[in-house]
């Protein structure tokens, strides 16, 4: 089976460790993630201004690319891309006037009226592959690995585009269980990482990061799993500074959900690119016998 796939710019530059293991894992699971042709930036952030239609052009154009392929579903990996595309899609479905304006503006493209569904790979794993079927394909169960599922904001909010229950999501926990890992719940699972405040107020980010990381650790987690390159950056890049500030903090590995998926499916570190991760995941994985001994990352 082939799934229309929207990667997003960050996955092609900074977050290869999110994309590569996803593509390889889906091959193993019998579904090919087929990159849609001629995609452009998703818009990065959904514009909340009511009269700012020009910023809906980028996401809608991507949805048109999917429709052109004769597909009615597109899979995303990055939470921000999911959020932006899905909200633009809702606008095109529900607001006839704005739909008309956007279609008229993009008169070089075919008309679009929300025919495509935007889904996250987590939803594909849950609804199309199924946790039981996934569990049966696991070659290297992540036994003894205690991982805190961190959802962040854009996977769950606003409610209309959430991939799971907004208040009590379980989809990441279910994935971890299917892979043989131990999910560790913690109250800050959906606290904001600071998001794009990293650009305007970078000094504030360590506060947010510490709040989240410290909570996960104090609830017994050895690592966090996440879906968003921006969360990864905000929770990861300041860890060295946090270690200087907090004696008891030794850093904590951050994994993309696709890396744990690929690892459990037996795809190994060549596919997972752990070398791009924050928080020295190699040490933890070796300790848990989840990396082949002596093999360099």
């Amino acid at each position: 089976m082939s799934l229309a796939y929207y990667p997003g710019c960050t996955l092609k530059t900074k977050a290869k460790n999110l994309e590569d293991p996803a593509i390889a894992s889906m091959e193993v699971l019998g579904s090919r993630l087929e990159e849609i042709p001629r995609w452009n930036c998703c818009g990065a952030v959904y514009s909340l201004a009511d009269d700012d239609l020009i910023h809906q052009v980028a996401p809608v154009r991507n949805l048109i690319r999917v429709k052109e392929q004769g597909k009615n579903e597109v899979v995303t990996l990055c939470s921000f891309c999911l959020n932006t595309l899905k909200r633009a899609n809702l606008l095109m479905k529900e607001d006839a006037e704005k739909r008309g304006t956007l279609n008229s503006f993009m008169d070089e493209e075919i008309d679009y009226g929300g025919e495509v569904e935007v889904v996250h790979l987590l939803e594909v794993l849950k609804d199309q592959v199924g946790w039981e079927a996934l569990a049966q394909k696991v070659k290297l169960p992540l036994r003894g690995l205690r991982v805190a599922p961190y959802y962040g904001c854009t996977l769950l909010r606003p409610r209309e585009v959430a991939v799971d229950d907004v208040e009590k999501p379980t989809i990441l926990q279910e994935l971890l269980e299917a892979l043989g890992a131990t999910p560790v719940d913690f109250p800050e699972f959906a606290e904001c990482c600071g998001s794009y405040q990293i650009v305007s107020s970078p000094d504030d980010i360590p506060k947010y990061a510490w709040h989240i990381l410290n909570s996960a650790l104090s609830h017994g987690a050895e690592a966090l799993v996440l879906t968003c390159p921006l969360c990864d950056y905000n929770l990861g890049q300041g860890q060295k500074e946090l270690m200087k500030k907090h004696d008891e903090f030794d850093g904590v590995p951050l994994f993309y959900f696709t890396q744990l998926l690929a690892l459990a499916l037996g795809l190994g570190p060549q596919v997972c690119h752990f070398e791009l991760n924050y928080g020295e995941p190699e040490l933890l994985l070796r300790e848990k016998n989840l990396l082949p001994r002596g093999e360099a990352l």
Partner: protein
Amino acid sequence: MSVKENNKNPAETTVKEKKQLAVKLIPVHIMGKRYEVPEGLTIMKAMEYAGYRFIRGCGCRGGTCGACGTVYRKPGDYKLQVALACQKTVEPDMYVAQIPFFPANRAEYKFTELTSAPEEVFRLYPELFRCVACNACTKACPQGIEVMDAISALKQGNITEAARLSFDCIQCGLCTSRCLGELAQYHMFQLARRIYGARILSRAEHLAEMVKAVEEGEYEEALEKLKGMNEEELKRAYQEREVEPVSAGEDWKPKDKRYL
């Protein structure tokens, strides 16, 4: 036209005949003013016919230099059209204006210090990320380049794809003139093609070997021999040289294998 008419002294041509021979004139609006110009002229020639003189800013007149970017509209069509004035022939009632130059800042860089990392482009042209995918650039390209797709490729860190897509760019600047995000697409593409050519495209190993052979004097003797010939000898040598037959197969080799 009969033979008899053809043999007639041109001076005897009547006024009526002159009118019949004359090229059809069509109305065009150049910089907002109406002119009647002969059908079939290029926009550039039509402007000269109307009295414009191109001392500078007319470029190569061959469609490759990018100096005669032109915009026009036709009555009843809201679409802005683009063309190169030296390539496009006039159409009745078109409203034409030339944009021989459009200001766009080119980043300064020391090329020898650049790598093939996508971040080089991001750093030199941070305005890249102001693109909102409106696609006005693509519509403005007289070369038919998918300009927006090439910009998307740069954002995705795919310098190779940006270089490939923009290969036909003649740097006329019309994309830049239409850009909502104030990007200087054509300068970014030039940077992409430079990086691609120097840092990404694989080197031709046989070229380096050949240059080395030349430098080591492998061809000196043959060259000296040629230089010592008079005109007649040169001509004969040229005519008698061994030429690969049209029907030669892949494994054809010349009799003289000294320089293979």
